[in-house]
């Protein structure tokens, strides 16, 4: 990212050079303007205690706490920046505690691109309150105006060289009280850390092989657990020779509870080997075939569903003609490089679990119900895992570790799923069908817009008030079944996320056809339904533009009223060197043996967060139908940027991930279970297919920070889809756009 600001390197360099003498002195009167008071962030309403956000210890330590957790998105670096900015201390002096049910605020799950917008705002206000309070102590003691005081790296400075450390000031006042939510954060103009690309604090440990991940934790007496999974989701355990199983090499304990079966062993490979042998030796009874033998799309369209129209706007004049289309996406996986892992230990009936869950508190609640115990007897501590991209096996494996560790009290047990186990047993991203219908006026303009989406659930996370969303609980002798799944409501939606059009069209109608019953368990995959709703709506938009004989960018601009979306669209288009022209349906753009096309995609994530426009250029091989993305350009605007390079990393990484989803990824199953169990059966994008990416950030320090971590997937998929339409002139309705599907469209 660059263009609209100094280069990324300049930012990094400036930070590195400035660290020693960091300009963290700041006086209120220097502020060029005051930020408007923001509404109280919901995180402070649910976690009002100041000491659940910041503590100054008598020995001068500055402890900052956040309920948000590091998923590889760099959020702890950003939180450190925010806290250091508001407290006026050097970032490296802060001790940061994250995601521990015994210590931090309950911020629910770190998901949905909400950490900076809500958690960061709460932390910022709490730290501003702490700073103002401590400054007030010095002002009173020195009989000076508060405005005459400054803070330099945690030391309050007054006239005549007076100095007071935060620790000393804190000894005269209680910071154990509710946060004063009227505390004013520093005006953005005065910020010296927020808005800079401070290097990630966790990357050095990762490149030097220091202990970072749960997978690397090796407490004294560590044992290894593994689960012997049934041959299918609905299979039940009939019998197992337990004595034989206990005699397998290295096995310390065999746990059988209903159809839940697992082992604890002295060595990791012994636990894995024993689990494999036990699966093969046990007698299982198969359940009913998945989807009754139908395709997932047939199931979605024909099985009983909850149909609800969730959004309508007033109709305008009827269109002169209409256009309708259907789009489909199969199941897609999180496919984390490192499978899920947890470490559990029981001591006198109390359970401690180290987990890379996105939500330590929600996980604790479901663990308590699954294990039939009180939540306050459980402590969940976050430790990093491999990137999750939504609800993968992270929570499930925590229950597995707890169930297995219960057989060896006092001993820590680490369970690290195999990759096959992750692919087969994690919740998948839902298959979806989207149907769109629009009326077009005589001038080609949109006169009405109806978006119907058929989907399985997009969030079956832990955190409900009943039941248990941890998989192994369903297989116990006394099973704790999951609560009935529900769909997320608008404005942000789940199945219908981003189904409400960003375009000014009269006569809007959004309808969901929700399947709470899911033969293949589904849950949150990064963006929930947002990715595919954007892909479908933006493909449809290009088809309408083509019918109107208009350039896709001009057609969007004529229907846009949101200046922030206009700004990113124009910026991405300019960056890409877009040549205005209408898409010609039924005719490709040949260059040698390839068809070459350019497409655009646009979205405002959740209709409330980051604005992202992407342009993609693809080449389609006429003989094979293979699509190669040659280049992508993006423009992002997400309000105030806390860490521009962190945003670039999220946006550009999301573009690569989305290219992978869009071109390659689709889960397959047999009668019993998902069968896409490794990277051969479920390939993801490799270096050879990753295109060159150029992206710019439009920073708006005058506007609140918006969620960015899921901003680019939808528009990227849409840009690739529309580039294929431009290249081939053909409608390819099903993601992923595999060579077979593109070839079929070319030959149709």
């Amino acid at each position, binding site marked *: 990212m660059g263009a609209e600001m100094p280069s990324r390197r300049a930012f990094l360099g400036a930070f590195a050079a400035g660290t020693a003498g960091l300009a963290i002195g700041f006086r209120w009167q220097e502020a060029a303007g005051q930020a408007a008071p923001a509404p109280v962030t919901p995180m402070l309403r649910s976690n009002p205690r100041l000491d659940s956000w910041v503590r100054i210890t008598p020995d001068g330590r500055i402890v900052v706490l956040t309920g948000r957790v590091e998923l590889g998105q760099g959020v702890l670096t950003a939180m450190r920046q925010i806290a250091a900015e508001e407290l006026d201390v050097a970032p490296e002096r802060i001790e940061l505690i994250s995601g521990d049910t015994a210590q931090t605020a309950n911020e629910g799950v770190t998901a949905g691109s909400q950490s900076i917008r809500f958690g960061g705002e709460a932390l910022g206000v709490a730290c501003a309150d702490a700073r103002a309070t401590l400054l007030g102590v010095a002002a009173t003691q020195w009989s000076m105006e508060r405005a005459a005081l400054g803070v330099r790296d945690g030391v309050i400075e007054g006239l005549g060289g007076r100095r007071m450390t935060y620790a000393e000031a804190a000894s005269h006042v209680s910071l154990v009280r509710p946060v004063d939510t009227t505390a004013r954060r520093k005006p953005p103009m005065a910020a010296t850390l927020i808005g800079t690309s401070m290097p990630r604090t966790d990357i050095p440990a990762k490149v030097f092989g220091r202990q970072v991940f749960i997978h690397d934790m*090796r407490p004294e007496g560590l044992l290894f657990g593994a689960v012997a999974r049934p041959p299918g989701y609905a299979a039940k355990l009939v019998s197992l020779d337990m004595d034989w199983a206990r005699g397998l090499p290295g096995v310390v304990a065999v746990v059988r509870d209903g159809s839940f079966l697992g082992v604890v062993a002295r060595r990791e490979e012994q636990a894995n080997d024993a689990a494999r042998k036990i699966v093969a030796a046990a007698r299982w009874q198969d359940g009913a075939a998945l989807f009754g033998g139908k395709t997932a799309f047939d199931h979605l369209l024909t099985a009983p569903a909850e149909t609800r129209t969730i959004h309508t706007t007033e109709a305008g004049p009827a269109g002169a003609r209409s256009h309708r289309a259907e789009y489909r996406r199969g199941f897609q996986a999180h496919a984390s490089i490192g499978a899920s892992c947890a470490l559990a230990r029981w001591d006198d009936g109390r359970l401690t679990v180290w987990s890379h869950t996105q939500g330590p508190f929600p996980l604790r609640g479901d663990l308590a119900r699954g294990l039939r115990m009180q939540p306050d007897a459980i402590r969940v501590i976050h430790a*990093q895992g491999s990137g999750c991209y939504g609800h993968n096996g992270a929570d499930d494996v925590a229950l597995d570790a707890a169930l297995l560790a219960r057989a060896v009290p006092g001993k820590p047990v680490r369970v690290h799923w195999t990759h096959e186990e992750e692919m087969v047993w994690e919740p998948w991203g839902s298959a979806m069908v989207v149907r769109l219908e629009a009326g077009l006026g005589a001038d080609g303009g949109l006169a009405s817009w109806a978006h119907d989406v058929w989907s399985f659930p997009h969030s079956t996370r832990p955190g409900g008030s009943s039941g248990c969303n941890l998989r192994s609980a369903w297989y116990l002798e006394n099973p704790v079944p999951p609560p009935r799944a529900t769909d997320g409501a608008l404005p942000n939606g789940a199945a219908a996320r981003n189904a409400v059009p960003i375009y000014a069209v009269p006569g809007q109608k959004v309808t969901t056809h929700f399947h709470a019953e899911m033969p293949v368990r589904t849950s949150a995959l990064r963006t929930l339904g947002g990715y595919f709703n954007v892909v479908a709506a933006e493909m449809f938009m290009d088809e309408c533009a083509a019918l109107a004989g208009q350039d896709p960018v001009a057609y969007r601009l004529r229907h846009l009223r949101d200046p922030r979306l206009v700004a990113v669209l124009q910026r991405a288009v300019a960056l890409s060197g877009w040549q205005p022209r209408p898409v010609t349906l039924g005719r490709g753009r040949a260059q040698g043996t390839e068809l070459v096309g350019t497409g655009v995609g646009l979205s405002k994530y959740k209709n409330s967060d980051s604005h992202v426009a992407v342009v993609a250029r693809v080449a389609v091989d006429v003989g094979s139908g293979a699509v190669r993305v040659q280049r992508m350009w993006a423009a992002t605007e997400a309000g105030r940027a806390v860490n521009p390079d962190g945003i670039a*990393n999220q946006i550009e990484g999301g573009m*690569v991930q989305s290219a992978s989803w869009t071109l390659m990824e689709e889960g397959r199953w047999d009668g019993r279970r998902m069968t896409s169990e490794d990277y051969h059966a479920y390939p993801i994008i490799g270096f050879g297919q990753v295109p060159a990416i150029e992206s710019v950030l439009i920073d708006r320090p005058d506007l609140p920070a918006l969620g960015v971590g899921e901003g680019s997937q939808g528009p990227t998929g849409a840009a690739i889809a529309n580039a294929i339409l431009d290249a081939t002139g053909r409608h390819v309705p099903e993601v992923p756009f595999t060579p077979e599907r593109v070839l079929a469209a070319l030959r149709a």
Partner: protein
Amino acid sequence: MLRLSVNGRTTEVEVDPATPLIFVLRNDLELNGPKLGCGRAQCGACTVLVDGRAVRSCQMRAGDAVGHVVTTLEGLGTPERPHPLQAAFIAEQAAQCGYCTNGMIMQAAALLQERPASLDEATVKEVLDHNLCRCGTQPRVVRAVLRAANGRGA
């Protein structure tokens, strides 16, 4: 008893020679660098150097490492004396979750040893094509490897 040479040190480990090397490195020698990924040599997270060649330690029997020189991420460099690749990955901020980072660096380290001259983007992408990253940091990883190759580690 296996005698293994890892990161310049010789260690004796009481383990079945058929044990995959990854488990011995991680659980017996308590090394964090090599990561267990797919366990099927498809992702590259477990890559180590054996006599300077990049090897997937999930597929190598520990017994087969006897008599060879094994280097893991920890043996490549330290914060005080980083390998040019380690410095370059920090300079380029070439990670998100960092789980694949070990494999990226170790595979690239072998490449830099073999072909220090005339390294271009296409070559880096070709050599790393079977190292998977799910976060989408491939463009940054390529920049970091080229940065290290051009002697601009930090």
